[in-house]
């Protein structure tokens, strides 16, 4: 008995060490970036590992005001909220029909959507610029939202239809027997059941779009329409010409990072279960 007890301990210790070290790196990044943002450039270059001697809060003021992060924050918030809401409005009904409907070609149509997950987004860069230009919505937040919703459809429908498929059909049949129309079945029975799946998919898309970078890089030109990721990128370019202001850059990164991390602390379980829902049936 004692032998097996001793045998487990060092292995478990090693496991804790490995996992602990890796996890600590995540924490370290957040902490270090915040600390770096409070230093001066000379301080950061001189002693990158140490705590800031006298915190320079004006790095934040500069990032927020003269580098317009308040503006970018608003843009990101608008685009992402509207996109997620629109995405749900479009994807939930579609996924419902694709998973529980009975019509010819249902499987094919579903696979058609899922196939979209394999289309590399860079392939679409140039045609999307041309298309949104012709529609007059290039370089606008509206155009960006429309593209976001469209590109998120394959994955979202994939996850949602998986979720819908797993719902029991007895309630549905019972409702129909009771004389409910198809619409009432959807609205009163299936939709409430779908709420957790929809919520998770919403959170996942919110995070993904909040941090989205390549599509906005291509579609957005004017500084006033920049989202937060573009804001950080523009901060990278602008800091180069202002004496290499890395602390200012890290202040911008913190502004972007802290809200998501804070949200994550509360919603991590939700997010993680949502991802696994899609990949693991």
């Amino acid at each position, binding site marked *: 008995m004692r032998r097996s007890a001793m045998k487990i301990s060092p292995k478990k210790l090693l496991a804790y060490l490995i996992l602990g070290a890796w996890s600590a790196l995540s924490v370290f990044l957040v902490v270090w970036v915040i600390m770096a943002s409070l230093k001066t*450039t000379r301080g950061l*270059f001189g002693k990158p590992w140490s705590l800031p001697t006298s915190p320079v809060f004006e790095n934040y003021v500069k990032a927020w005001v003269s580098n*317009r992060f308040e503006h970018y924050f608003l843009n990101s918030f608008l685009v992402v909220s509207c996109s997620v809401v629109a995405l749900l409005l479009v994807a939930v009904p579609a996924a419902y029909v694709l998973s529980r409907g009975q019509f010819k070609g249902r499987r094919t149509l579903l696979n058609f959507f899922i196939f979209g997950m394999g289309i590399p987004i860079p392939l679409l860069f140039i045609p999307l610029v041309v298309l949104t230009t012709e529609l007059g919505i290039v370089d606008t937040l509206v155009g960006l939202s429309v593209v976001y919703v469209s590109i998120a459809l394959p994955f979202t429908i994939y996850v949602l239809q998986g979720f819908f498929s797993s719902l029991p059909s007895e309630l549905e049949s019972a409702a129909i027997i009771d004389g409910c129309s198809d619409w009432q079945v959807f609205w009163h029975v299936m939709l409430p059941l779908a709420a957790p799946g929809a919520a998770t998919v919403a959170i996942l898309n919110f995070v993904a779009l909040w941090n989205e970078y390549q599509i906005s890089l291509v579609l957005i*030109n004017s*500084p*006033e329409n920049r989202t937060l990721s573009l804001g950080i990128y*523009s901060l990278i370019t602008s800091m*180069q*010409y*202002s004496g290499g202001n890395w602390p200012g850059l890290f202040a911008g990164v913190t502004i972007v990072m802290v809200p998501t991390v804070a949200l994550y602390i509360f919603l991590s379980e939700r997010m993680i279960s949502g991802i696994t829902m899609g990949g693991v049936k």
Partner: protein
Amino acid sequence: MKSSASRFALSVLTIASGLAAFSGASQASELTFWSMWNEPEPQAEALRAIMDAYTKAHPETTFKVVWNGRQNQTKLRGALQAGTKVDFMDQDGDQLAGGLQKQGQAYQLDEALGEGFKDTLLPGAYDLYAEGGKHFQIPYVYNTVNFWYDKEIMKEAGGTPPKTWTELLSLCEAVGKTGKHALVVEGNDTAYTLLYFSNLLERELGPNAVIKTFEDKSGKAWLDPAVLDSAKKAYSLWDSCIAADARGFQYPAGQQTIALGDSMAELVGSWLPTELSSSTGSDFAWGAFNFPEVEGGKGKQTDLQVALLSMMVLKDAPHPQEAIDFLKYLTGAEAQQVLVEKGGVGVTAKGVAWPEVLTDAYEAAQNATTLTNIYGGMSINYADFYTTKFAPEHNKMFLGQITPEDFVKMMSEETKAYWAGK
């Protein structure tokens, strides 16, 4: 009054002229300006002050500015295709010349500015980016290419600004003995590293040597021993002048080393003191010297590579005339003075003194015997070859990934292929 008729006529005239004056004054135009500066930069502040002053003097002209940062031309191009209307923009003159100007998106200025405009600017400035005698750009900021150095470190090493290549190498050794690095480079900036090779070739073979070498359609000009020699000399800087880890510096990490007192100098444009001003503080002792001569070469130390920043009016600008009027004001003494004081840059107008920290550069600009384009000038007429082949391959040679011999051979073959495909 003589008669009621004349009274009537007079009142009509008065009213008519009053109306005319009124309608003339209400010709309000909002000029859209896309700028290469980032909003917090001092140059942007200077431009804002200038635009405010102009609006005060001409209330009917207001400005709508988009501060895009250095990728201005790229962003503007996308916007133009989307139908966005822009009046004028600015960017590095050579990039404009190889970009929007070449694509016919620029408004021709000769008619509006006339013959005499050239003489309001420093010699050679107005013509530098002209195409076949036609002018599309108004240069307003003047950058020269020099070795920018920390006077303290040079003093400590007991050195003086070198006049020849050999003197430069001995200066490097002297600085090395004090424990500092003589030169620093930005390893990943293919344009900056090109300054050494292009200047060396121009010192050996004379001004515009790089272009002339490229324009030999057989590609054989690259095999001239002077070319290989320049490449080798550039690479030899790593022996005693540049620290080995500089090959990994991603811009702007390299130039920070000067602000932090690790390195003495960098071969770069005169924008460096302004870019580093918040790291160096205002009491940094900047000095600049021109690229030294190469023994036995044709180029003189007073031949200068320059990079002018220009304003350009768009061909489809909604208010071209008003834009040009503003740009005339911008290159006038008053506005240029503001650029010097608030922006900390060298300017193109004749007779306006540059900021004190750029004194050496101003002297170089005034005493320049020939002006050539920065980085050898390939970016103007051969932009795609420059971006896809010349600059990256040279950087590989400079960082030691291919030998100078392979580099010149490759350039020779690629040049031949380029001209064959035309």
